[in-house]
């Protein structure tokens, strides 16, 4: 399965299992979404469960909240990272805090899913990585898978969560990775990172499409005799401090790889964790291998902005040699 198919499969399993799940968004119903993640689901479950909404992100999320408060479990789709912002007000002012404001009387079992990230030569506003904005909102959980297997297991958990989940899908690898994924239902816990490779010299933390780039960098590092521990964060918030801390205590070095601008980012949070939890173990300054603090350039300039295996290796080596 690809990531697209794995998410489709997870949605399919949950739609079959729970009559209260509804799915909607722009082009999400009849066409199955511009990336075909929801393809075939309207046919199978009917247009009152899987449907196209009018074109308005704030309305998609705001109505989703209403549904979640009244017995449904909506899984709404926003078409692209750069078009989630019209819904930002609903997310920060309502979705995230209804449970708290009602002192637990109302839960918000909803998933807001959207493709994110660059590297596909897209138009303006189609290549952004806004995970830090959303992870910064108390009351919201943010999940980002990097493989088809994880995409399925995490999506099942996201739909079953009684807290609102932002589920960001790395569009660059939507179809690039094929993997055997079990047909049956399984779930992967939200809030748990995964150690993809064990190592002793440096901890590299990444997520989403950057995992694949890091794996390529690891090959280069190995040739250079550097032993890298690679961690796939999988959930941005709640962030898995324990896995990060244990690894940094062992390696004494941390390099974070992500697509978003460097400043005020998930990278900044991870460095804070390394400092707060493993300060005395650090042997080199933590390093963020992330985008410039600029707007994501259009296609012609994007190669400067995106993290490549070579750049990741360069920073790994500098950190180890520090």
């Amino acid at each position, binding site marked *: 399965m690809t990531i697209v198919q794995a998410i489709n499969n997870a949605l399919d399993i949950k739609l079959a299992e729970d009559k209260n799940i509804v799915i909607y968004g722009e082009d999400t119903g*009849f*066409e199955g979404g511009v990336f075909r993640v929801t393809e075939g689901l309207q046919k199978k479950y009917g247009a009152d469960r899987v449907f196209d909404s009018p074109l308005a992100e704030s309305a998609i999320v705001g109505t989703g909240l209403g549904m979640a408060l009244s017995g449904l479990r909506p899984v709404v789709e926003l078409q692209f990272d750069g078009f989630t912002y019209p819904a930002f007000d609903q997310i920060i002012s309502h979705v995230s805090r209804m449970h708290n404001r009602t002192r637990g009387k109302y839960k918000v079992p909803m998933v807001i899913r959207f493709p994110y990230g660059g590297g596909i030569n897209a*138009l303006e506003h189609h290549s952004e990585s806004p995970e830090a904005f959303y992870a910064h909102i108390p009351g919201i959980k943010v999940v980002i898978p990097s493989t088809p297997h994880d995409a399925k297991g995490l999506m099942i958990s996201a739909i079953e969560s009684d807290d609102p989940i932002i589920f960001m899908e790395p569009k660059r690898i939507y179809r690039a990775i094929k993997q055997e994924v079990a047909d049956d239902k399984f779930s992967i816990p939200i809030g748990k990172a995964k150690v993809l490779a064990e190592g002793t010299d440096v901890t590299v933390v990444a997520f989403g499409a950057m995992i694949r780039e890091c794996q390529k960098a690891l090959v280069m590092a190995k040739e250079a005799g550097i032993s890298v521990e690679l961690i796939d964060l999988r959930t941005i918030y709640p962030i898995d401090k324990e896995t990060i801390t244990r690894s940094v205590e062992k390696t004494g070095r941390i390099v974070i790889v992500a697509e978003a601008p460097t400043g005020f980012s998930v990278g900044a949070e991870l460095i804070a964790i390394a400092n707060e939890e493993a300060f005395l173990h650090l042997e080199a300054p933590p390093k963020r291998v992330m985008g410039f603090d*600029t707007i994501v350039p*259009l296609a012609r300039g994007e190669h400067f902005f995106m993290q490549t295996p070579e750049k990741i290796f*360069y920073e790994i080596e500098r950190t180890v040699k520090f």
Partner: protein
Amino acid sequence: MIFKDFDPKEDKIFRIIDNEGVVINNELMPDIDDETVVKAYKAMLYARTADEMAVSYQRQGRMYTYPPNIGQEAISVAAGMIIREKDWLVPAFRELGAWLAKGVSLKEIFLYYMGNEEGSNFKNANHMLPFSVPIGTHLLHAAGIGYSINYHKKDEVVFTFTGDGGTSEGDFAEALNFAAVWKAPVIFTVQNNQYAISVPVRNQTKSINLAIKSYAYGIPGIKADGNDFFAMCAAYKQAAGYAKAGNGPVLIEAFTYRKGAHTTSDDPSKYRSKDEEIEGEKTDPLKRMKKFIDNKGIWKEDEEKLLEEFRIEIDQQFSEAENFTPYRLEDVFQYTYVDLPDDLKKQKSEYEQFLKWKESRK
């Protein structure tokens, strides 16, 4: 005022020529001389040729995703005939005719769709904003510019556009309301091409048409045949007169049909029938205009020859875009702020260090 005669409540459509190019509403025919009619037809042909070539460049992998205007040319070419140099154009992304009239070059448009921000600079187009990809959001800018025009007592009008899908965004409602409250001189055009990607307009709204939304804001609205150049021209003339006289904004629904795909990444056969497309073909704005011209016998040139000239000229502009100065590292940074903060200067120089290292490994 035609806006009164074609009340959106009655779901009337303002039309001047029929599908055979025959004038069915002579009274309201705008006063346009033959030479201008031919000029407008050529502008439509040019826009279509450019679109067809853009789609083919994209297929050849020489350009990225592109949203063609095919089938909708009469609207923005008509707007382009009425808009003046000092008037403002606040576009969405499907108004090629108006951009060109404003002075944007095809080279710039191609450059933008090749993924270079330089294409949004519009060196020779005064008072025009870049294309707006986030649907509907730019309509508010048009309202703000309208306020500014009133404030400075200027003789200017703002032309702004969105699609049928765009009318569902909150910003659409807010922009019309603000412009109305401020009596801002803004002409809002909704190009109703009947689709928002795969979603047909009947699933977008329960309004009987889109022009009727004007009622909610207390402004004039009209549903015009967007594939009828003359109807669009007449509507824009009246709208511009109304706005310039200090009466405030108007809403024009330009009823049309998106003949092509939403963009080069889209496949409409997934969500609409061949029959429907064949039906849509009958209202093609270029064919109608050509029939009108032929009926009147006002143009004798060889169209094939003209098209060939267009193709050569368009290809020339494409080459210029293709051969544009290669994208440099500093292009990523330089316009982020008026003065580049030190932190960004450092990020740039660190990247240069990396590039040196990379070079040294070769």
